[in-house]
Each structure stands twice: as structure tokens, then as C-alpha cells.
């Protein structure tokens, strides 16, 4: 019994007296979960706010004036007023459907020509119709539909109440929904766009993190690196050799994870919406994804190599890499749960964030070649800087042989 206590005390002391372990074991888990969820909450809140403040673009035909007047300046409470812009719909129905699908217009309401008259003379005239165009694949269109239709339904209800003595005329008007207002491919891709970029980047990082520190800090720690340094091999060759081999291995590891996700997707998607079809993506889409993966893996391996060359031990390297891993996690989460992919050119120069953003875009078929090239070229430049630094470090005896 005494021995057990002695051992327990020693083992606990071992951890508690080691600052690194204290941070790793006690601080990081709580902190990281707190950060992740706070961030996720904030991002989603921001997104909701952004949608609520969005100006609804409504096109109408023959809308009753009473309805129009209600919509304009509708009080939403909390000192907020419905932000809406109402235009007359002059285009043909098919054109309107296209514009709704592409996101130019949030909502189209086409009322029958004699709509109000038909409601007024409901006993003698036929039931009038309201035709609705909206894109449930787009959050802003969805929001517009809900806001505007609640007013329309209230109008319907008030008419219904005025007919209480004629219960057989329960229906006030007929609502029809227009077709071709939703891009099915984009819809199907949206779930993936949320999930995949984040997972891909996390797997890339995790793959590189599991081999990078061992290959560089580990060799320093085990004194095998100096054996390499006394050969006439150029330091820059060593740096490139390390970075390229680590990149290939990390890439293979990430691709394995990627394939795993793809294989499990049919099951996963079945649960969600029953439309789990990956054949919406063409070969060229997969090629673009692979290209982004390669660019990103170089960058991540470059970073991890520099940190590993600086660290004296594998343990120290893993510790120093942690914060960057968390930043990557956070970037992944923010981008995935954020609004639609950002198309701005400059965004794609930001390491990791640019790549995750672009990946989200590729999954919803909303990206440009320019952005793909920007991510590729900028990653190669960042990697070149890392390799240069690595070369300098390999030449620096204080870093390579510090005691």
C-alpha cells in the first residue's frame, strides 16, 4: 500500500513539475474547447446577423397595395425595420427563375391579374393564384421567403377571418411554386463544403505533425543529424530533401484520410438528406482539390520543419507546433461555418485560410482559376521562404548544436 502511494506521488509529481506537461494536460484541452466553441458560436451569430441585415430584393407582379404597404417599413421589433427593395417583375418566368437561382433576386411573387377582385368576389369568381420563386439552397433567399411570406400569410388569415360565416370558402388563394429556382448540384455540394475543407486541412496538418518533428528534431535529439552534416552534402539539399519527402508522406496520409471520408460519405449523407451523390464532381474538380492539397501540404511541412529544426527535442517541437495546429483548426472552423466562400483575390494570399476558402468554393462550384493559381503560387513562395530559413538554420551551429 505504501509503495503504491509512493509510486502515485512520484508519477503525479513527474507531470505537475513539468511545465510543458502541465500546459499540455491541464490547460490546453479546456482552453482549446472553450476557444473552439466560442468561436463557432460567434461565427454563426455573425452569419445570422449578416443575413438579417441583408437587403431583400423582391420582384412582384400585381401585388395588392395593402400588402406592399405592410412590407415597406415593417417593424421587426428591437428598433429594426424590414430592409426590402421591391421591383416590378417584367421578365418572363423562366428568366426570373434563372435570376433567383443565380442569386440576383431573393424572391419573386407573381399575383394573378385580378387577384384582389377574385378575393373580394370569392363566391362568384375562381380561386386566384400566387406564384412564388425562391431558392432554398441560398440562405438569403430562404430568409427573404420566410420574412415576406409571414406577412402574406397574415393577410390570408385576415381575409379568412372576414369569411367566417362562409366556412366552405376556406381557401383564399392558391400558392404555386416555380421550378428551376434551385441549383441542385450546388445544394448537394453545400454539406461537403462545410465538412471537407476543414477535415482536409486538419488531416494534412495532423499527418505532417506526426512525422515532421521526428524527422528533424528527433534526428537532432538522437545525434544522427550531425552524421549527415559532416558529409559534403549542401545544407540546402538537406533542407529540400527533408521538406519534399515529408510533404509526399503527409500528402499520402491526407489523401488516405480524404478517400476514407469519400467512402463513408454515402452513409453519412443518407442520414442527412438522402441525396449523397459524389458524382456531381467531375475529374477536374478532384484535380483542383488535389492541387490545393499539394500547395497546402508544402506550406504546412515547411512551417513544421522550421519549428522542428529550432527545437532541441521531439517533445519541444510538438509543443511549439501546437499553437499553429490550433490556429489551423480555428481557421478551418471559421471558414467552414462562415458564409459563402470569399472570392476576393487578396484573401487567397493568406496561408491556410486562402486554401480552406478555395476548397469550400470548389465544393460548391463557385471558384476561379485565378484564385487557384494564387493559392498555388503563394504557397510555393511561402515554402521557399521556409526552405531558405531551414537552410540558414542547418548552417547555424548554435541552433544545430545547442546544449
Amino acid at each position, binding site marked *: 500500500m505504501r509503495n503504491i502511494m509512493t509510486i502515485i506521488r512520484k508519477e503525479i509529481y513527474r507531470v505537475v513539475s513539468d511545465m510543458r506537461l502541465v500546459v499540455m494536460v491541464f490547460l490546453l484541452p479546456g482552453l482549446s474547447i472553450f476557444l473552439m466553441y466560442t468561436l463557432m458560436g460567434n461565427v454563426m451569430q455573425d452569419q445570422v446577423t449578416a443575413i438579417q441585415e441583408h437587403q431583400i430584393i423582391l420582384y412582384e407582379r400585381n401585388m395588392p397595395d395593402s400588402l406592399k404597404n405592410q412590407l415597406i417599413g415593417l417593424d421587426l421589433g428591437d428598433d429594426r425595420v424590414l430592409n426590402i427593395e421591391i421591383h416590378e417583375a417584367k421578365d418572363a418566368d423562366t428568366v426570373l427563375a434563372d435570376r433567383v437561382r443565380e442569386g440576383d433576386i431573393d424572391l419573386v411573387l407573381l399575383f394573378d391579374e385580378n387577384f384582389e377582385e377574385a378575393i373580394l368576389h370569392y363566391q362568384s369568381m375562381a380561386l386566384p393564384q400566387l406564384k412564388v420563386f425562391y431558392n432554398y439552397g441560398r440562405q438569403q433567399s430562404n430568409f427573404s421567403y420566410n420574412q415576406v411570406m409571414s406577412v402574406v400569410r397574415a393577410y390570408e388569415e385576415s381575409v379568412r377571418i372576414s369569411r367566417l360565416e362562409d366556412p366552405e370558402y376556406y381557401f383564399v388563394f392558391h400558392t404555386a411554386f416555380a421550378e428551376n429556382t434551385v441549383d441542385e448540384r450546388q445544394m448537394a455540394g453545400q454539406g461537403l463544403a462545410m465538412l471537407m475543407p476543414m477535415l482536409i486541412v486538419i488531416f494534412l496538418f495532423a499527418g505532417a505533425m506526426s512525422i515532421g518533428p521526428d524527422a528533424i528534431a528527433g534526428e537532432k535529439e*538522437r545525434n*544522427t543529424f*550531425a*552524421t549527415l552534416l*559532416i*558529409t*559534403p552534402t549542401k545544407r540546402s539539399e538537406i533542407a529540400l530533401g527533408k521538406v519534399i519527402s515529408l510533404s509526399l508522406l503527409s500528402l499520402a496520409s491526407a489523401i488516405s484520410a480524404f478517400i476514407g471520408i469519400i467512402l463513408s460519405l454515402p452513409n453519412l449523407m443518407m442520414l442527412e438528406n438522402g441525396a449523397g451523390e459524389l458524382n456531381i464532381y467531375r475529374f477536374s474538380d478532384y484535380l483542383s482539390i488535389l492541387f490545393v492539397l499539394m500547395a497546402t501540404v508544402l506550406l504546412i511541412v515547411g512551417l513544421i520543419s522550421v519549428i522542428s529544426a529550432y527545437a532541441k527535442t521531439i517533445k519541444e517541437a510538438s509543443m511549439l507546433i501546437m499553437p499553429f495546429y490550433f490556429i489551423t483548426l480555428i481557421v478551418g472552423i471559421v471558414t467552414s461555418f462562415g458564409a459563402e466562400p470569399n472570392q476576393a483575390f487578396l484573401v487567397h494570399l493568406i496561408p491556410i485560410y486562402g486554401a480552406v476558402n478555395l476548397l469550400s468554393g470548389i465544393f460548391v462550384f463557385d471558384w476561379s482559376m485565378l484564385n487557384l493559381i494564387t493559392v498555388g503560387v503563394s504557397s510555393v513562395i511561402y515554402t521557399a521562404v521556409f526552405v531558405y530559413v531551414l537552410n540558414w538554420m542547418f548552417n547555424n551551429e548554435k541552433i544545430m*548544436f*545547442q546544449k
Partner: protein
Amino acid sequence: MNTLQVENIRKTFRLSKKQRKIEQTDLKKKVAVDDVSFTANPGEIFGLLGPNGAGKTTALRCIATLIKPDQGDVYVGDYSVLKESSEVRKNIAFLTNELKLEDHFTPNYLYRYFSRLHGVDETVIEERKERLFKRFGIDRFAEVKVADLSTGMKQKISLAISLVHDPNFIVFDEPTNGLDVLTAKTVTDYLVEMREQGKTVILSTHILSVVEKLCDRVGIIIDGKLKAYDTLENVKKQSSDGELETLFFDFVKESLGEDHA
């Protein structure tokens, strides 16, 4: 010319807090090698004799281009370690127990790997490997992972691998340290063989008998400074009783006295 000239090298290390604790000193800097010069000639074994912490490894590392002297230079043949370090590396073998081989690989794999990094021809690689592996009795273990081999065998593999490029300069740091007598003899026999081949051999040691048995010329280094430097015979003559041991301990005592003063 295959002489190796060490010219007034000095190497200072900044001491970390941890090291100050170990060395029990308040000084922020440590002069590990203090203005040391010597010459090693082809066909000779030069011995650097000194107690632990005297600066032997540091001096040899400067020669092997792993670190740069703050002052002075070393000429390995015609090449300066400061200016032509990669030429120096092409021509030198450096063995120290601070350089390790990766456990995961076999002697065959590592031998070929380092041969290629030295730019040795494939046919020469195999020829030389066979000869060296046989010479050191590695051949039977050529396909066993380094991790599974004994300390002595590991040391012999390191030795063979340090020679993949058949260099003219051999720099061995405490080459028999921690080895059993048989393995130690294999190593010292080989050093003698290298001398006969006309190579320039430098070894460091804290063991007097190694110097007496092997070295043609010797430098005694104490606390970074070269206290004596001559042929073995002439150095012995400086001793009160003609014994290397007496001289060595006199130097050590002298330097301890300085420390306490």
C-alpha cells in the same frame, strides 16, 4: 600536401543557465578552446591528450567543420575550414560518440546512403563496403538493424561509415572509449594501418596508455590551452621522471591550483 594545420583557434560558448549549474560557475561564457595550434603530418598519428572537459571534442569539431572557430583557422590539406568547409568534408573522416547512426536502418543501407552522399561510385561503394565490413567483422550483421546490435558493433559500423569516401585525413574523438578490449584493439590496429598508408591521423583521448602506444606526436590540452606539444619522446623529456603520467598530472594539478586562486 596532406598536412593538417590548426592555427590559433579559439572557441567560446555562451553558457545557458542549465550549463552554469552543471559547470558550477557564474561566468556567462566558457572558452572551450583557447588559442590552440598544432600540425599533424601524413604518415603520423597525432594525439590530443586531455582530461574530461579540456576542449578536445570542441577542437576536433572545429577541424571537422561542424562548428566554426571564433578566431584562427584550420587547414585540412589546402582547404580552410572557414572558407572551404565542403571541400574539407570531402576529405576527412570524423568519428565521435556524439554522432550516431539511425537505429532503424541496417549497416548495408546506411553504408550505401552515406557513400552516395559523398558521391562515391556505385561499383566502388560495393567493393569498399565488402573490404571494410570484412575487416571489422560487420559482414555477418550487414542486414541486421543497428538498433539490435551491441555497442561495440555500432562503433565499428560508425567507423566503417566514416571511411566510405577513403579520406586522407582521419579525425577520431576518443575512438576506444567505452569499448571492450577486443573491439578497442580492432580500432587501434586500424589506426596504425592508416598511418602506414600515409594518412594523416588525429585522435583525442584521456587515456595515457593510448597515447603511449599509438602516437608519434602529442599535444596535451588542459582547460582549453595547449600545455605541451611535441613528439612523444620530447614531451616525455619535459617530465621530472620521464613519465608521461607525471607530466600530465602536474599539468592537471597546476590548472586546478589556478582555479582555486
